[in-house]
Protein backbone atom coordinates (compact mmCIF):
# COMPACT_ATOMS: atom_id res chain seq x y z
CA UNK A 1 0.00 0.00 0.00
CA UNK A 2 2.72 2.39 0.95
CA UNK A 3 4.78 1.20 -2.00
CA UNK A 4 6.60 3.79 -4.05
CA UNK A 5 5.41 2.62 -7.47
CA UNK A 6 2.05 4.43 -7.44
CA UNK A 7 1.34 6.24 -10.69
CA UNK A 8 1.04 9.69 -9.11
CA UNK A 9 4.47 9.92 -7.51
CA UNK A 10 7.57 11.55 -9.00
CA UNK A 11 9.51 8.88 -10.88
CA UNK A 12 13.22 8.98 -11.70
CA UNK A 13 13.74 8.27 -15.39
CA UNK A 14 17.53 8.38 -15.59
CA UNK A 15 20.00 8.11 -12.73
CA UNK A 16 23.48 9.58 -12.80
CA UNK A 17 26.26 10.59 -10.44
CA UNK A 18 28.48 13.63 -10.50
CA UNK A 19 32.06 12.62 -9.60
CA UNK A 20 33.06 13.80 -6.15
CA UNK A 21 29.50 14.25 -4.87
CA UNK A 22 28.04 11.38 -2.89
CA UNK A 23 24.44 11.74 -4.04
CA UNK A 24 22.25 9.94 -6.59
CA UNK A 25 21.02 12.58 -9.02
CA UNK A 26 18.11 11.74 -11.28
CA UNK A 27 16.23 13.15 -14.24
CA UNK A 28 12.62 12.87 -13.07
CA UNK A 29 9.21 13.18 -14.67
CA UNK A 30 9.10 16.76 -13.37
CA UNK A 31 12.13 17.76 -15.43
CA UNK A 32 10.65 16.27 -18.59
CA UNK A 33 7.24 17.85 -18.05
CA UNK A 34 8.79 21.23 -17.27
CA UNK A 35 10.99 21.05 -20.35
CA UNK A 36 7.96 20.25 -22.51
CA UNK A 37 5.98 23.12 -20.97
CA UNK A 38 8.85 25.54 -21.55
CA UNK A 39 9.35 24.37 -25.13
CA UNK A 40 5.62 24.74 -25.87
CA UNK A 41 5.59 28.28 -24.52
CA UNK A 42 8.79 29.18 -26.36
CA UNK A 43 7.44 27.83 -29.65
CA UNK A 44 4.20 29.76 -29.31
CA UNK A 45 6.09 32.91 -28.35
CA UNK A 46 8.53 32.66 -31.27
CA UNK A 47 5.80 31.90 -33.81
CA UNK A 48 3.69 34.79 -32.53
CA UNK A 49 6.69 37.12 -32.61
CA UNK A 50 7.56 36.21 -36.20
CA UNK A 51 3.95 36.51 -37.36
CA UNK A 52 3.27 39.82 -35.64
CA UNK A 53 6.51 41.44 -36.76
CA UNK A 54 5.48 40.80 -40.39
CA UNK A 55 2.01 42.35 -40.02
CA UNK A 56 1.39 45.85 -41.35
CA UNK A 57 -0.89 48.14 -39.31
CA UNK A 58 -3.49 48.14 -42.06
CA UNK A 59 -3.79 44.34 -42.28
CA UNK A 60 -6.67 42.40 -40.83
CA UNK A 61 -5.34 40.58 -37.69
CA UNK A 62 -5.15 36.80 -37.89
CA UNK A 63 -6.40 34.26 -35.35
CA UNK A 64 -3.10 33.87 -33.50
CA UNK A 65 -2.56 37.60 -33.30
CA UNK A 66 -6.03 38.10 -31.86
CA UNK A 67 -5.51 35.45 -29.20
CA UNK A 68 -2.09 36.79 -28.20
CA UNK A 69 -3.36 40.38 -28.05
CA UNK A 70 -6.32 39.28 -25.94
CA UNK A 71 -4.05 37.39 -23.54
CA UNK A 72 -1.61 40.30 -23.20
CA UNK A 73 -4.51 42.68 -22.65
CA UNK A 74 -6.03 40.50 -19.93
CA UNK A 75 -2.71 39.99 -18.17
CA UNK A 76 -1.80 43.65 -18.11
CA UNK A 77 -5.24 44.65 -16.89
CA UNK A 78 -4.97 42.01 -14.15
CA UNK A 79 -1.63 43.44 -13.00
CA UNK A 80 -2.89 47.00 -13.42
CA UNK A 81 -5.86 46.34 -11.13
CA UNK A 82 -3.55 45.77 -8.14
CA UNK A 83 -0.27 47.47 -8.97
CA UNK A 84 -1.50 50.76 -10.40
CA UNK A 85 1.43 52.95 -11.43
CA UNK A 86 4.02 50.24 -10.72
CA UNK A 87 2.53 47.98 -13.39
CA UNK A 88 5.35 48.53 -15.87
CA UNK A 89 8.02 47.19 -13.54
CA UNK A 90 6.29 43.92 -12.72
CA UNK A 91 4.02 43.08 -15.64
CA UNK A 92 6.66 41.00 -17.44
CA UNK A 93 7.50 38.73 -14.54
CA UNK A 94 3.90 38.31 -13.41
CA UNK A 95 2.62 37.55 -16.92
CA UNK A 96 5.35 34.97 -17.43
CA UNK A 97 4.57 33.43 -14.07
CA UNK A 98 0.85 33.27 -14.82
CA UNK A 99 1.26 31.70 -18.26
CA UNK A 100 3.81 29.20 -16.94
CA UNK A 101 1.57 28.21 -14.03
CA UNK A 102 -1.52 27.83 -16.23
CA UNK A 103 0.27 25.62 -18.74
CA UNK A 104 1.99 23.64 -15.96
CA UNK A 105 -1.28 22.99 -14.16
CA UNK A 106 -2.98 21.99 -17.42
CA UNK A 107 -0.15 19.54 -18.20
CA UNK A 108 -2.14 16.85 -16.40
CA UNK A 109 -4.63 16.94 -19.26
CA UNK A 110 -1.92 15.80 -21.67
CA UNK A 111 -0.88 12.80 -19.61
CA UNK A 112 2.12 14.49 -18.02
CA UNK A 113 2.63 14.75 -14.31
CA UNK A 114 2.14 18.47 -13.61
CA UNK A 115 5.48 20.11 -12.75
CA UNK A 116 3.74 22.12 -10.03
CA UNK A 117 2.95 18.86 -8.20
CA UNK A 118 6.64 18.79 -7.23
CA UNK A 119 7.46 20.81 -4.13
CA UNK A 120 10.83 21.73 -5.58
CA UNK A 121 9.18 23.78 -8.33
CA UNK A 122 6.64 25.60 -6.17
CA UNK A 123 9.17 26.34 -3.42
CA UNK A 124 11.46 27.93 -6.01
CA UNK A 125 8.59 30.12 -7.24
CA UNK A 126 7.70 31.01 -3.66
CA UNK A 127 11.29 31.99 -2.92
CA UNK A 128 11.39 34.22 -6.01
CA UNK A 129 8.29 35.96 -4.66
CA UNK A 130 9.95 36.28 -1.23
CA UNK A 131 13.08 37.83 -2.73
CA UNK A 132 10.99 40.23 -4.82
CA UNK A 133 9.02 41.28 -1.72
CA UNK A 134 12.11 41.87 0.43
CA UNK A 135 14.16 43.54 -2.34
CA UNK A 136 11.40 45.98 -3.24
CA UNK A 137 10.61 46.61 0.42
CA UNK A 138 14.23 47.50 1.19
CA UNK A 139 14.49 49.60 -1.97
CA UNK A 140 11.38 51.59 -1.15
CA UNK A 141 11.52 51.90 2.64
CA UNK A 142 15.29 51.67 3.28
CA UNK A 143 15.90 51.14 7.01
CA UNK A 144 12.25 51.39 8.03
CA UNK A 145 11.70 48.11 6.20
CA UNK A 146 13.47 46.44 9.13
CA UNK A 147 12.19 48.67 11.91
CA UNK A 148 8.66 47.85 10.75
CA UNK A 149 9.27 44.40 12.23
CA UNK A 150 9.26 45.99 15.71
CA UNK A 151 5.92 47.72 15.17
CA UNK A 152 3.60 48.29 16.97
CA UNK A 153 5.57 47.12 20.04
CA UNK A 154 9.04 45.59 20.17
CA UNK A 155 8.12 42.22 21.67
CA UNK A 156 6.00 41.38 18.62
CA UNK A 157 9.25 41.04 16.65
CA UNK A 158 9.25 37.18 16.60
CA UNK A 159 5.66 37.07 15.36
CA UNK A 160 6.36 39.64 12.64
CA UNK A 161 9.46 37.73 11.58
CA UNK A 162 7.52 34.45 11.37
CA UNK A 163 4.87 36.28 9.37
CA UNK A 164 7.49 37.39 6.83
CA UNK A 165 9.13 33.96 6.57
CA UNK A 166 5.80 32.13 6.35
CA UNK A 167 4.82 33.99 3.17
CA UNK A 168 6.79 31.89 0.64
CA UNK A 169 6.06 28.67 2.54
CA UNK A 170 2.31 29.17 2.56
CA UNK A 171 2.34 30.38 -1.07
CA UNK A 172 4.26 27.38 -2.31
CA UNK A 173 2.39 24.85 -0.16
CA UNK A 174 -0.94 26.20 -1.38
CA UNK A 175 -0.06 25.71 -5.03
CA UNK A 176 1.67 22.38 -4.40
CA UNK A 177 -1.16 21.05 -2.25
CA UNK A 178 -3.88 21.91 -4.73
CA UNK A 179 -2.17 20.41 -7.75
CA UNK A 180 -0.85 17.41 -5.79
CA UNK A 181 -4.28 16.60 -4.32
CA UNK A 182 -5.75 16.56 -7.81
CA UNK A 183 -2.91 14.36 -9.08
CA UNK A 184 -3.22 11.94 -6.15
CA UNK A 185 -6.99 11.64 -6.45
CA UNK A 186 -6.88 11.05 -10.20
CA UNK A 187 -4.02 8.58 -9.80
CA UNK A 188 -5.95 6.65 -7.15
CA UNK A 189 -9.07 6.56 -9.31
CA UNK A 190 -7.14 5.42 -12.39
CA UNK A 191 -5.40 2.72 -10.36
CA UNK A 192 -8.57 1.65 -8.61
CA UNK A 193 -10.98 1.08 -11.48
CA UNK A 194 -8.65 0.91 -14.40
CA UNK A 195 -10.84 -0.12 -17.38
CA UNK A 196 -13.88 1.92 -16.33
CA UNK A 197 -12.28 5.31 -15.78
CA UNK A 198 -12.30 6.62 -19.34
CA UNK A 199 -15.66 8.35 -18.88
CA UNK A 200 -15.82 9.98 -15.51
CA UNK A 201 -12.10 10.57 -15.32
CA UNK A 202 -12.69 13.39 -17.79
CA UNK A 203 -15.10 15.16 -15.43
CA UNK A 204 -12.59 14.93 -12.58
CA UNK A 205 -9.84 16.18 -14.88
CA UNK A 206 -11.99 19.19 -15.65
CA UNK A 207 -12.43 20.04 -12.00
CA UNK A 208 -8.92 19.29 -10.72
CA UNK A 209 -6.83 20.37 -13.70
CA UNK A 210 -8.80 23.07 -15.48
CA UNK A 211 -10.85 24.73 -12.73
CA UNK A 212 -8.52 24.29 -9.77
CA UNK A 213 -5.39 24.82 -11.87
CA UNK A 214 -6.57 28.13 -13.33
CA UNK A 215 -7.79 29.39 -9.95
CA UNK A 216 -4.51 28.51 -8.26
CA UNK A 217 -2.43 30.15 -11.00
CA UNK A 218 -4.57 33.29 -10.59
CA UNK A 219 -4.30 33.17 -6.80
CA UNK A 220 -0.52 32.73 -6.84
CA UNK A 221 -0.04 35.75 -9.11
CA UNK A 222 -2.64 37.77 -7.22
CA UNK A 223 -1.02 37.14 -3.83
CA UNK A 224 2.46 37.86 -5.22
CA UNK A 225 1.15 41.18 -6.50
CA UNK A 226 -0.64 42.01 -3.26
CA UNK A 227 2.42 41.23 -1.11
CA UNK A 228 4.77 43.24 -3.31
CA UNK A 229 2.30 46.10 -3.49
CA UNK A 230 2.00 46.10 0.31
CA UNK A 231 5.67 47.02 0.51
CA UNK A 232 5.93 49.57 -2.28
CA UNK A 233 2.58 51.36 -2.15
CA UNK A 234 2.63 55.02 -1.12
CA UNK A 235 0.96 55.57 2.23
Amino acid sequence: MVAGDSSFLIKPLYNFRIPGIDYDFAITTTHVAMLLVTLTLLTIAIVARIKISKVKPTDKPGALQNVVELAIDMLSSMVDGIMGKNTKRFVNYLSTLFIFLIVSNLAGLFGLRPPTADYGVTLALGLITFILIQFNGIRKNKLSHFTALFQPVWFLFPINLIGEVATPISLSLRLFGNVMSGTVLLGLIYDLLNPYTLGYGAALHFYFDVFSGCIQAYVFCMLTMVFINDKIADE
Partner: protein
Amino acid sequence: MEMSNISGQDYVNAMSALGAGIAMIAGLGPGIGQGIAASKACEAVGRNPGAKSAVTSTMLLGQAVAETTGLYGFAVAIILMFVKPFK
Protein backbone atom coordinates in the same frame (compact mmCIF):
# COMPACT_ATOMS: atom_id res chain seq x y z
CA MET B 1 -2.81 -13.59 13.00
CA GLU B 2 -1.19 -13.31 16.37
CA MET B 3 -0.11 -9.96 17.60
CA SER B 4 3.48 -11.12 18.01
CA ASN B 5 3.79 -11.50 14.21
CA ILE B 6 3.53 -7.74 13.75
CA SER B 7 6.99 -6.24 13.46
CA GLY B 8 7.95 -2.79 14.57
CA GLN B 9 8.02 -1.59 10.95
CA ASP B 10 4.47 -2.89 10.35
CA TYR B 11 3.31 -1.02 13.41
CA VAL B 12 4.97 2.20 12.22
CA ASN B 13 3.40 1.84 8.75
CA ALA B 14 -0.05 1.21 10.21
CA MET B 15 0.20 4.16 12.56
CA SER B 16 1.48 6.37 9.71
CA ALA B 17 -1.59 5.49 7.63
CA LEU B 18 -3.82 6.16 10.63
CA GLY B 19 -2.05 9.47 11.26
CA ALA B 20 -2.51 10.44 7.61
CA GLY B 21 -6.24 9.83 7.96
CA ILE B 22 -6.41 11.85 11.16
CA ALA B 23 -4.42 14.69 9.58
CA MET B 24 -7.05 15.00 6.86
CA ILE B 25 -9.61 16.06 9.50
CA ALA B 26 -7.98 19.43 8.83
CA GLY B 27 -10.17 19.51 5.71
CA LEU B 28 -13.19 20.21 7.91
CA GLY B 29 -12.37 23.81 8.74
CA PRO B 30 -11.65 25.11 5.20
CA GLY B 31 -14.84 23.40 3.97
CA ILE B 32 -16.97 25.26 6.46
CA GLY B 33 -15.06 28.50 5.86
CA GLN B 34 -15.36 28.31 2.09
CA GLY B 35 -19.08 27.60 2.40
CA ILE B 36 -19.55 30.66 4.58
CA ALA B 37 -17.55 32.78 2.12
CA ALA B 38 -19.65 31.55 -0.81
CA SER B 39 -22.92 32.20 1.02
CA LYS B 40 -21.85 35.73 1.92
CA ALA B 41 -20.78 36.31 -1.69
CA CYS B 42 -24.23 35.17 -2.85
CA GLU B 43 -25.83 37.64 -0.45
CA ALA B 44 -23.58 40.40 -1.72
CA VAL B 45 -24.39 39.65 -5.37
CA GLY B 46 -28.10 39.54 -4.50
CA ARG B 47 -27.90 43.00 -2.96
CA ASN B 48 -25.70 44.46 -5.67
CA PRO B 49 -25.76 42.45 -8.91
CA GLY B 50 -23.59 45.04 -10.67
CA ALA B 51 -20.59 44.07 -8.54
CA LYS B 52 -20.79 40.39 -9.47
CA SER B 53 -17.36 40.04 -11.08
CA ALA B 54 -15.55 41.93 -8.33
CA VAL B 55 -17.33 39.91 -5.63
CA THR B 56 -16.57 36.64 -7.39
CA SER B 57 -12.85 37.30 -7.77
CA THR B 58 -12.55 38.51 -4.17
CA MET B 59 -14.43 35.44 -2.96
CA LEU B 60 -12.19 33.07 -4.92
CA LEU B 61 -9.06 34.77 -3.58
CA GLY B 62 -10.33 34.59 0.00
CA GLN B 63 -11.37 30.98 -0.37
CA ALA B 64 -8.01 30.02 -1.80
CA VAL B 65 -6.27 31.62 1.17
CA ALA B 66 -8.66 29.96 3.62
CA GLU B 67 -7.85 26.62 2.01
CA THR B 68 -4.23 26.82 3.15
CA THR B 69 -4.78 25.25 6.58
CA GLY B 70 -6.47 22.26 4.96
CA LEU B 71 -3.56 21.90 2.59
CA TYR B 72 -1.12 21.85 5.53
CA GLY B 73 -3.05 18.82 6.77
CA PHE B 74 -2.85 17.32 3.30
CA ALA B 75 0.91 17.91 3.18
CA VAL B 76 1.29 16.14 6.53
CA ALA B 77 -0.79 13.22 5.26
CA ILE B 78 1.27 12.93 2.06
CA ILE B 79 4.52 13.02 4.02
CA LEU B 80 3.29 10.33 6.42
CA MET B 81 2.13 8.08 3.59
CA PHE B 82 4.88 8.43 1.01
CA VAL B 83 7.96 10.08 2.47
CA LYS B 84 7.80 7.85 5.57
CA PRO B 85 9.82 9.94 8.04
CA PHE B 86 9.58 7.34 10.85
CA LYS B 87 11.55 4.31 9.82
